[in-house]
C-alpha cells in the first residue's frame, strides 16, 4: 500500500486492525497525539482528503489513496507554503495552550471550521478536550485576539511574554515523552488484578512466554523486595513504604501483578491474556469508615512507622488538634450549622497518560525518559529501590502533557526500570486512558463533617471539623493530604475555639494521590458552605461575615495545629480579594438567565494556601554566559503547562538586563546537576524562580566584576546591558567578554539555590451568579469572577490562564466528574464518555482580578498561583445554588439529576 501524508508518499502496510493514529506515529508523525484513544478528546485530529477526523477511530487501511494531513503538514495544506498556518499563528498570538498536548488537535479542528461552526464553538469543539486552559485562551485564538507582548531588555517581569516552546507546540514539533523512536524499542503491558484483594499462589507464565514476540514476563519473583511509596516528597519517609514494584498480594481491582515485555504492544497484550494466575481470594473492604472498624480485613500487614499510623486498623494517618473550647464556643453561638459534606473521587485527566521509556546506556547507566513532575526525586528512589548508585541513574523529561499532581508519583518509571535493567534494551510503557481511571491515582474522596457557630454580631465563635479520607489500597500522599486538608481551610479564619479530627484509611480501591489543592478543595467545600449557611442564619452578607473573621497579619494561623513558624504573611491581599469580588458581583453584569422562570442566586468562597509545601523544597539554577553572548540556563523544574519556563526566562532576563529570548533553557534532567525537589506544591515560580533570580543576580555580579577587572574600570562604572557590558565609555559585547574569560580560564556561570523556607501565604476568592432551572435542575453560570493574591504577577497573561484553568478543572469536579466505584470495588467510569470532562461549552468566561501586593519572599515579590484557584470553586458554586434554590447540596458533583428533586420539595 502507499499512503500520501503531508504531500509525501509512504509505501507501507499497516497491521489489519491498526488505527490511523498509531500508523502515522509509526511513520514519525509525532504531532498526532493520543489523549484517549477512543474518539473523545480530539488530540489525534488529522485531515483525510481535507475533512477532519479522529485518527484513533479510523482504520489505517482506509487512508490508502487519500490525502492525509497532520499538524506537521497544516502550514503547507492548500499550498500555503512553509510559513505558519494562520491558525497556528493565532494560537501563538493568543497563547491558546498550556501543556500543549491537545494543541495540535485543537488547531487542526479550529482551522477546519466554517463560519457557522465558528459562531457556535461550544458545538464545534465538543470533540476537543483541553484540561489546562479552561478554553478562554483557545476562544481568544480563534477570535484572533493577541495576548502576547514584547518586553524591553531587563523589564520582562510583569509582561505577557510568550512561552518559549510556543512555536514548537503549535507546529507539533514539541517533543512529549513518547515522541521519540529509539532503535530496538520494546513494549510493555501490565497484567492487572480482577480481584479487589487476593494473594497470588502462583503465576504460570509459560503460555505468555510462548507468544511470538514476547521477550520477558516479570512478576513478584523478579522484583526487588524494597518497599517504597509511589508518592514523591523531598523528605524520604514522608509517605508510607507499602508498595513493591510487583507484589504478590493484590489490593485493588486494577493493581498490576505482572509486566509483559514484547516486540510489539499486540504481543505484550496477548502475553498478559495468556498468564494463568492462581489466586487465594481475601476479604475486601471498600468504605473507609468500615475499614477503620474493628474486625475489618487488614489490607497491609506492616508495622506502624513514621508515615503509617496503624496499619492493623487500616489507619494510614490521623490528625487531631484543638484550640480554646469548642463546646463553650457553640454554647455561646446564636447560630450553628452542622452538616456532612462529601467530595468523591475525581481524576486528573492530564491528556498525556502516564508513560516512560527506560534504557541502559553504553556506560551502564539506567536512563528513564518519563512523564513526571519530579525527575530528581524519581531518580533518587529508583536508585534506592534497585540498589544503584544515584550517579548510575538518570531521569529526565522534555515536555510533559499535563500533571496536576498525578505525576508527583512514581507509577510507571519503576517497572520500566526493572525491565530495562534486565533486558538491556529500551522499554516503553504507556498507560491507556482506561488504566488512568482504574489503576493510577485520584483525588482523595473525603467525608467532612463540619460544625460552625457564630454570634449575632458576626463573630465566628467555634469551628469543628471531622474528616475521613479514603486513600485507597496504597497510602501514597494519604498523610500529607490529610494534614493539608486540616490546615488552611480552618486556619484562614481567626476563631477562638477550633477542633479538628482527621483520619485517612486504606480500602481495597484504586489509590488516591496528589491532586491540585492537595486535600484543601475537599475540606474547603465543607467549611465554606458552612460559613455561608451560618452567615445566612444571622442575616449577614456572607462576604461581610468573612471579611470580619478571616485571619489578618499578626494573628496566628491555626488549623488542626498552629502553622509552623516558617509560614509568615510575606504579603496579605485577602482583604483586597474580598473587596474585588464583592465589587464585581455588585456590578450586576454577566449573562442574563435563559428565561425568567430560572432561579437566580449568588455565592462566594475563599481560600488561603501556603506558597510552598512544608519540610523543605529545594531548587538549583545555573546560568552560564555562552560563546554567542546568549545565556544557557539549566533548571530542574519540569514544564507541564504550568508556564514556569516562561517565568524563568522572564526572571533571568530581568536579573541580567536582557530580553527573554536571550535565555536558553534546558530543564528537568537529573544529569544537569544540582537538585530540584520538583514541580509540585505550586513551587515552580516561588522556589525554582527564586533560585533563578539568585543565579541571575550572582552571574550579573560575576560578569560585571570580570568586565571591570579585565577593562581596568571601576566596578561602579560598569553596567550590564542586553548584549554587552559597558565599562565607562567602552562597550564590551557579551560574546567578547565570553572569549576573554575563556582565554583566562574563567567560567562565567553562577548557580542559585532556594530552599523553600520561610514560606508565605496566597489567597483566592471566587464569586458566581448562577441560574438553576426549576424543572430540570440544569445550572447556567451567568457570572464567574475570581480575585487572586499572587503577589507581583510576573506574567499576567499566564497567571490569568492558571486561574482560569483552575476554575475550569474545579467546575468539572463541581458539576460533572466522578470516578464511580461499584460495591465490589470496580471503577465503572473508565473513559471520557462515562467521565465527562468540561468541554468548551461547559465553561464560562471568568473575570480574573489580581490583588496589588508584593511578597517579601518570592522572586520579585511573586507568590504561587497554580493550585489555589481550584480550591474555592465548588463551595462558591454550591453557595450560589443554595441562594438560587433555597436548598443546600452536600455532595459533589452538582448534577441536574440530583438537583431537580430537591427543588421540587
Amino acid at each position, binding site marked *: 500500500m502507499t499512503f500520501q501524508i503531508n504531500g509525501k508518499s509512504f509505501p507501507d502496510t499497516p*497491521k489489519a486492525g491498526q488505527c490511523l493514529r498509531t500508523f502515522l506515529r509509526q511513520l514519525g508523525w509525532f504531532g498526532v497525539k493520543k489523549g484517549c484513544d477512543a474518539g473523545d478528546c480530539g488530540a489525534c485530529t488529522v485531515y483525510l482528503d481535507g475533512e477532519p477526523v479522529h485518527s484513533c477511530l479510523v482504520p489505517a487501511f482506509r487512508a490508502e489513496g487519500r490525502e492525509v494531513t497532520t499538524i506537521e503538514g497544516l502550514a503547507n495544506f492548500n499550498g500555503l507554503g512553509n510559513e505558519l498556518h494562520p491558525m497556528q499563528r493565532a494560537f501563538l498570538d493568543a497563547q491558546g495552550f498550556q501543556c500543549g498536548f491537545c494543541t495540535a488537535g485543537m488547531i487542526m479542528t479550529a482551522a477546519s471550521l466554517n463560519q457557522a461552526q465558528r459562531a457556535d464553538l461550544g458545538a464545534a469543539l465538543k470533540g476537543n478536550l483541553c484540561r489546562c486552559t479552561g478554553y478562554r485562551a483557545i476562544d481568544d485564538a480563534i477570535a484572533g485576539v493577541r495576548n502576547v507582548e514584547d518586553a524591553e531588555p531587563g523589564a520582562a517581569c510583569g509582561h505577557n511574554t510568550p512561552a518559549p516552546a510556543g512555536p514548537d507546540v503549535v507546529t507539533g514539533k514539541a517533543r512529549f515523552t513518547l515522541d521519540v523512536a529509539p532503535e530496538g524499542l520494546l513494549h510493555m503491558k501490565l497484567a492487572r488484578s480482577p480481584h479487589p484483594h487476593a494473594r497470588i499462589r502462583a503465576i504460570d507464565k509459560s503460555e505468555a512466554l510462548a507468544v511470538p514476540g514476547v521477550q520477558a514476563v516479570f512478576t513478584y519473583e523478579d522484583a526487588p523486595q524494597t518497599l517504597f511509596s509511589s508518592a514523591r516528597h523531598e523528605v524520604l519517609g514522608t509517605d508510607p513504604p507499602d508498595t513493591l514494584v510487583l507484589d504478590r498480594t493484590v489490593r485493588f481491582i486494577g493493581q498490576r501483578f505482572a509486566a509483559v515485555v514484547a516486540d510489539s504492544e499486540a504481543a505484550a497484550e496477548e502475553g498478559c491474556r495468556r498468564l494463568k494466575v492462581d489466586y487465594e481470594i481475601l476479604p475486601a473492604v471498600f468504605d473507609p469508615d468500615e475499614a477503620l472498624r474493628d474486625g475489618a480485613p487488614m489490607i497491609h500487614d506492616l508495622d506502624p512507622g513514621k508515615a503509617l499510623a496503624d496499619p492493623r486498623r487500616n489507619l494510614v494517618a490521623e490528625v487531631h488538634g484543638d484550640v480554646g473550647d469548642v463546646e463553650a464556643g457553640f454554647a455561646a453561638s446564636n447560630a450553628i450549622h452542622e452538616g456532612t459534606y462529601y467530595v468523591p473521587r475525581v481524576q486528573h485527566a492530564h491528556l498525556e497518560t502516564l508513560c516512560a521509556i527506560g534504557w541502559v546506556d553504553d556506560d551502564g547507566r539506567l536512563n528513564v525518559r518519563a512523564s513526571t513532575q519530579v525527575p530528581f526525586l524519581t531518580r533518587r528512589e529508583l536508585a534506592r529501590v534497585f540498589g544503584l548508585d544515584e550517579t548510575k541513574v538518570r531521569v529526565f523529561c522534555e515536555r510533559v502533557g499535563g500533571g496536576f499532581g498525578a505525576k508527583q508519583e512514581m507509577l510507571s518509571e519503576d517497572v520500566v526500570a526493572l525491565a530495562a535493567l534486565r533486558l538491556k534494551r529500551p522499554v516503553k510503557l504507556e498507560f491507556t486512558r482506561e488504566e488512568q481511571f482504574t489503576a493510577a491515582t485520584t483525588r482523595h474522596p473525603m467525608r467532612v463533617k463540619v460544625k460552625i457557630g457564630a454570634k449575632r454580631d458576626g463573630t465566628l465563635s467555634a469551628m469543628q471539623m471531622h474528616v475521613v479520607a479514603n486513600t485507597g489500597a496504597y497510602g501514597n500522599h494519604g498523610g500529607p493530604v490529610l494534614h493539608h486538608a486540616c490546615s488552611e481551610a480552618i486556619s484562614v479564619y481567626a476563631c477562638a475555639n477550633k477542633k479538628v479530627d482527621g483520619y485517612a484509611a486504606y480500602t481495597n480501591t484504586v489509590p488516591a494521590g496528589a491532586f491540585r489543592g492537595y486535600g484543601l478543595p475537599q475540606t474547603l467545600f465543607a467549611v465554606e458552605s458552612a460559613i455561608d449557611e451560618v452567615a445566612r442564619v444571622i442575616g449577614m452578607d456572607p462576604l461581610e461575615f468573612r471579611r470580619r473573621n478571616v485571619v489578618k497579619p499578626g494573628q496566628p494561623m491555626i488549623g488542626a495545629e498552629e502553622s509552623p513558624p516558617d509560614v509568615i504573611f510575606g504579603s496579605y491581599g485577602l482583604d483586597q480579594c474580598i473587596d474585588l469580588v464583592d465589587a464585581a458581583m455588585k456590578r450586576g453584569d454577566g449573562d442574563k438567565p435563559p428565561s425568567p422562570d430560572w432561579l437566580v442566586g449568588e455565592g462566594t468562597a475563599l481560600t488561603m494556601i501556603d506558597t510552598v509545601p512544608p519540610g523543605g523544597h529545594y531548587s538549583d539554577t545555573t546560568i552560564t554566559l555562552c560563546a554567542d553572548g546568549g545565556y544557557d540556563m539549566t533548571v530542574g523544574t519540569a514544564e507541564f503547562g504550568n508556564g514556569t519556563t516562561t517565568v524563568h526566562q522572564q526572571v533571568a532576563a530581568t536579573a541580567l538586563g536582557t530580553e527573554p529570548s536571550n535565555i536558553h533553557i534546558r530543564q528537568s534532567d537529573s544529569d544537569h546537576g544540582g537538585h530540584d525537589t520538583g514541580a509540585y506544591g505550586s513551587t515552580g515560580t516561588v522556589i525554582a524562580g527564586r533560585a533563578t533570580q539568585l543565579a541571575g543576580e550572582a552571574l550579573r555580579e560575576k560578569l560585571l566584576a570580570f568586565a571591570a577587572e579585565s577593562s581596568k574600570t571601576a566596578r561602579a562604572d560598569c553596567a550590564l546591558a542586553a548584549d554587552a557590558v559597558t565599562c565607562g565609555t567602552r562597550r564590551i559585547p557579551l560574546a567578547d567578554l565570553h572569549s576573554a574569560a575563556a582565554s583566562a580560564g574563567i567560567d562565567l556561570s553562577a548557580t542559585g539555590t532556594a530552599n523553600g523556607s520561610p514560606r508565605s501565604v496566597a489567597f483566592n476568592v471566587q464569586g458566581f451568579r448562577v441560574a438553576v432551572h426549576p424543572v430540570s435542575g440544569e445550572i447556567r453560570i451567568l457570572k464567574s469572577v475570581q480575585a487572586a493574591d499572587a503577589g507581583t504577577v510576573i506574567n499576567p497573561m499566564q497567571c490569568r490562564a492558571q486561574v482560569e484553568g483552575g476554575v475550569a478543572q474545579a467546575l468539572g469536579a463541581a458539576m460533572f466528574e466522578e470516578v464511580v466505584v461499584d460495591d465490589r470495588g470496580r471503577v465503572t467510569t473508565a473513559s471520557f464518555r462515562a467521565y465527562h470532562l468540561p468541554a468548551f*461549552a461547559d465553561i464560562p468566561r471568568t473575570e480574573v482580578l489580581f490583588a496589588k501586593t508584593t511578597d517579601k519572599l518570592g522572586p520579585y515579590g511573586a507568590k504561587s498561583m497554580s493550585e489555589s484557584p481550584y480550591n474555592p470553586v465548588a463551595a462558591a458554586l454550591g453557595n450560589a445554588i443554595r441562594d438560587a434554590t433555597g436548598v443546600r447540596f452536600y455532595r459533589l458533583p452538582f448534577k441536574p439529576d440530583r438537583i431537580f428533586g430537591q427543588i421540587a420539595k
Partner: protein
Amino acid sequence: MDLNTITEVARPKTREDVPTWRDGDAWLGGGTWLFSEPQNRLTRLIDIGALGWEPLRASATGLEIAATCTIAKLDALAVPVEWIAAPLIGQCCRAFLASFKIWNTATVGGNLCMSLPAGPMISLTAALDGVCTIWSADGSERRVPVGDFVKGPLSNVLKADELLRRIDIPAAALIRRTAFRQISLAKVGRSAALLIGTFDPPTGEFVLTVTASTPRPMKFSFNNLPSGHELRARIEREIPANGYYDDIHGAPEWRRHMTLHFAEEIRNELAEQAR
C-alpha cells in the same frame, strides 16, 4: 485504538463476495465504536464500506438511507421543501455526544446497530416510521420497523450473520409537523431523554417517540391530539417508574421527570400549531 487481535480484513465489493460469517467476525461500518474500545475476541473485520451503497436516495416515496451513509452526509442532505419534518435530521445529528469530526466517519446504520438508548439516529428513524432492511446470510432480505429493531441497550433483532442494509423513511412521515426536546447532564453531553412529537394535520394523528430515557424507543400514537392528562396517563401506564434507563448519564427518576415534562411541552407546541 489499535485492535491488535484482528488478523484479517475482508473488503467485499458485492453481496456475493461477503464471506461466510464465522466466530470472531465483526461488520466494519464507520468503525467509530469498534475502534473506540478493546475488541479482544475479534479476529476479522468485514468492511461493508467497499460494497459501494449509494448513501442517500430521496424520491417521491421517501428517503432511503444506506446503513453506511455517514452522519455528515445525512446532515448535509438537501431535501424537498415539502418535507417539513427535515429539521429533525439536524436536531438529531446535534444530539450526538460525538463531534462533527466523528460524523465524517460514523454511519447511520452503525448507530442503529449499536442500539444504545441515546442513539440519535434511532430517535430520528423511529420517530419518522423508518423501516430497516436486513440482509440475511442466505441471500434473502427482511424488513423490520426501527421501533422493533432495537430491543434494548446493545441489543437488537440482528442475528450475528445478518447485516443492516438500509433504512427507509416514508414520504408521509416527512410531511408531518414535528417537535423536538433533548436533555443531557452537560450542555453537550450524551442524551438522557430525547423526545420527538409528530403531528399529521390532515388526519390529526399525534405520535410521541420517547428515546434515550428508556432502554429502547417507545412510541405513543393517538388518533387525535390527546389532552395532557391522557398523554401522561398513557406514558405512565406503558413506562412504569422502574422502566427508565439507569446509567451514569442520568438517574432514572430524573429521566422520568424530564420525559413527562417534555411530553407535555411537545403536546403544547404541536397543539399551538394545530390551531
